[in-house]
């Protein structure tokens, strides 16, 4: 899927290989991608700079993805920024926690590159 875009996506995952796969997919569609290895790093970045979308894992050291969503929603400029959760967690209970924290959507790994891009295009 070719997308001409100057939009920036913040990809948050403690797995370097996952970040590489996400970056490869998003950059190929024309997005600018910035990376963070956990919620703390992502939040530090978000406090300094706005991005168009956040894509975050759930289980990460220092700060998990659900907490990150909640913290992002507390930042005025991130109140309406799409935040998609990309995780191996498929249970309903944790999805509901993500929803209540303010996540825009839930994607279970492994992601299909084409469907990930379609979902991102839909929420942006």
């Amino acid at each position, binding site marked *: 899927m*070719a997308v001409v875009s100057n939009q920036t996506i913040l990809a948050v995952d403690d*797995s*370097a*290989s*996952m970040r*590489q*796969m996400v970056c*490869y*997919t998003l950059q*190929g569609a024309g997005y600018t991608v910035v990376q963070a290895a956990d919620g703390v790093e992502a939040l530090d970045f978000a406090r300094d700079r706005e991005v168009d979308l956040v894509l975050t894992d*759930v*289980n990460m050291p220092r700060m998990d993805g659900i907490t990150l969503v909640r913290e992002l929603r507390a930042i005025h400029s991130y109140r309406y920024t799409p935040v998609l959760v990309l*995780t*191996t*967690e*498929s*249970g309903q209970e944790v*999805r509901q926690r*993500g*929803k209540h924290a303010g*996540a*825009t*959507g*839930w*994607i*279970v*790994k*492994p*992601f*299909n*590159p*084409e*469907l*990930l891009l379609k*979902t991102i295009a*839909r*929420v942006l």
Partner: protein
Amino acid sequence: MDLGRRLDAAERVEAPAAATPEEWSPEQQIAHLLRLCDAQMESALCESDLAIDALIKVFTTVAEAVRALEPGTHTRAHAGAHTDAHSGASGPAQYQAQLDAVGRQMAGAVVAFQFYDKLSQRLGHVRHSLSSLARLVCDDAQSGQRERWQALFTQLRSAYRTEEERQIFRRIVDGASLDAAREHMQSATPARRPATGDDIELF
């Protein structure tokens, strides 16, 4: 710990069967074996991490090269002209079809690489189970208490992140044989059913 005690400890780890009769117990031997499994898994995972990192670097390099051949790039235009000169008007269409096929393979590889991440996570949970079990087995005060074992099971269950892990846990804890659990695992393994990556929910 002084050097003598460190050496004693090392000897016990390397040759648990040689422990003095006072030190020897079945629980200690179980704990040794559990720690051994944990260490072997950690070592294998470290090696695999390096290998998969190298593999992903190669993959992204090749994938970027393929992307550079997409229509609109200088390389693609040059290649298209070359194909035209040698094989007529159908050349570019054939070329595009080949590029599309490679693109589909690349997308499949992106999905497949993600299974390594899942594997690392699941083996991390197995290692956590082994080390928790080793601690409990060696704790004389706790290992005889039924509620401590129940707490261990609850704690291990809560660490699981994937539905596959939860299903295996349920089956084994409910008394399924290893063969039955294995059969279930194989039928549920994503390699045996297409990984569509379509579990997406927008709130």
